[in-house]
């Protein structure tokens, strides 16, 4: 996994995500989920490209059930963009890199 991607836990979620000054992308995933494995490397690539403008994080839903429960996540991969502590955008399922790139640009205000 890329160094640019933070591992988020139920304990660190509040500090690292909700109280973050930068917008945060959180990839909710689990080791048993096939499509999550397709999204993981894309997140790493995007983190290298946009890491200065947006914080990239991954949350393993097996080890951290409280956070996905709080946001009603019942499907993974789910990628949620947080801005000032609330949900700005949400992408469900494995999607191509272009789709995530567009959403990132929207969140950081560089719509294409």
């Amino acid at each position, binding site marked *: 996994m890329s160094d640019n991607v933070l591992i988020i836990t139920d304990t660190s979620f509040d500090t690292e995500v909700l109280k973050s000054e930068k917008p945060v992308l959180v990839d909710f995933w689990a080791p048993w989920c*096939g499509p999550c*494995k397709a999204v993981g490397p894309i997140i790493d690539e995007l983190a290298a490209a946009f890491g200065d403008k947006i914080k990239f994080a991954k949350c393993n839903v097996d080890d951290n059930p409280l956070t996905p429960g709080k946001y009603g996540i*019942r499907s*993974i991969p789910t990628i949620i963009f947080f801005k000032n502590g609330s949900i700005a955008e949400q992408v469900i399922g494995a999607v191509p890199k272009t789709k995530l790139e567009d959403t990132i640009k929207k969140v950081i205000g560089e719509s294409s």
Partner: protein
Amino acid sequence: MSNSEYDLIIIGGGPAGLTAGLYASRSRLKALMIEKLLPGGQIRVSDALENYPGFPETITGAELAQRMTEQAGKFGLEIETNEVLDVDFSQKIKKISLPDKTISAPAVIIATGASPRKLNVPGEEIFLGKGVSFCATCDGPFFHNSVVAAVGGGDTAVQESIFLTKFAKKVYVIHRRDELRATKILQERAFANDKIEFIWDSVVTGIKGGLTNVDAITLKNVKTSDTKNLNVDGCFIWVGTRPNIEFLKNALELDKNGFIITDSHMRTSVAGVFAAGDIRNTPLRQVATAVGDAAIAAFSAEHYITNL
């Protein structure tokens, strides 16, 4: 041969695309396979492939995809993660538009497969990821001790319903007919599973719930027209597939459901363009049929290129 950058471009990286790539590379064609996610396609979500020969102990879709990718790579197949936006098949050299460039080759194999078909009922879109799902291996564990509905009567619906009983305490299988289309061995297992209850002759007309969860689905009996609510925590949908043809526009002849029409050599309506696997107008959509199609498509493409 040609003066384009590739001899063959394969669009799609499921079992069909990977097999076409394997054959093309062994024929020493300069071949490129384009896959928008990770190679493997729909089988990535399958927890056990019991009907692909050679694996009596069964194999997961993800592992088979990994092995197929390695095997094609061993013979030199070039794989690129990218998304095809548009195609131009009007000239002898076909052009493929990607977000960052245009590439060309005299021959193209389309192996973009299919995606799960939606029900198109109220609530389906809103509750996607919040109780509505198309993937048991991805989302099943979220329904531990829950009551879920599974819609459909084919192989996927029945096999995945059985998988869901590992987590859910009750699985209602909702089917519009009074018998299943699924393979007999899967039917036997489903009928023997006491967590599964069948609701026959019924279709889902709506999905209801709160802000972030599903509470119930509405069912309509197609024979009596009676409607009723069924309380469930989730609704899994397996009612067949639709072809992934958005990038094709009107470039090729399709059947009435949008699948590409081919002959027995996997030739489409355009010379030099071939199709293989689930995207093709075919009576059966399996890994076994996809790899067979793809071997023929690669063979036909090679024959086409050498006779240019």
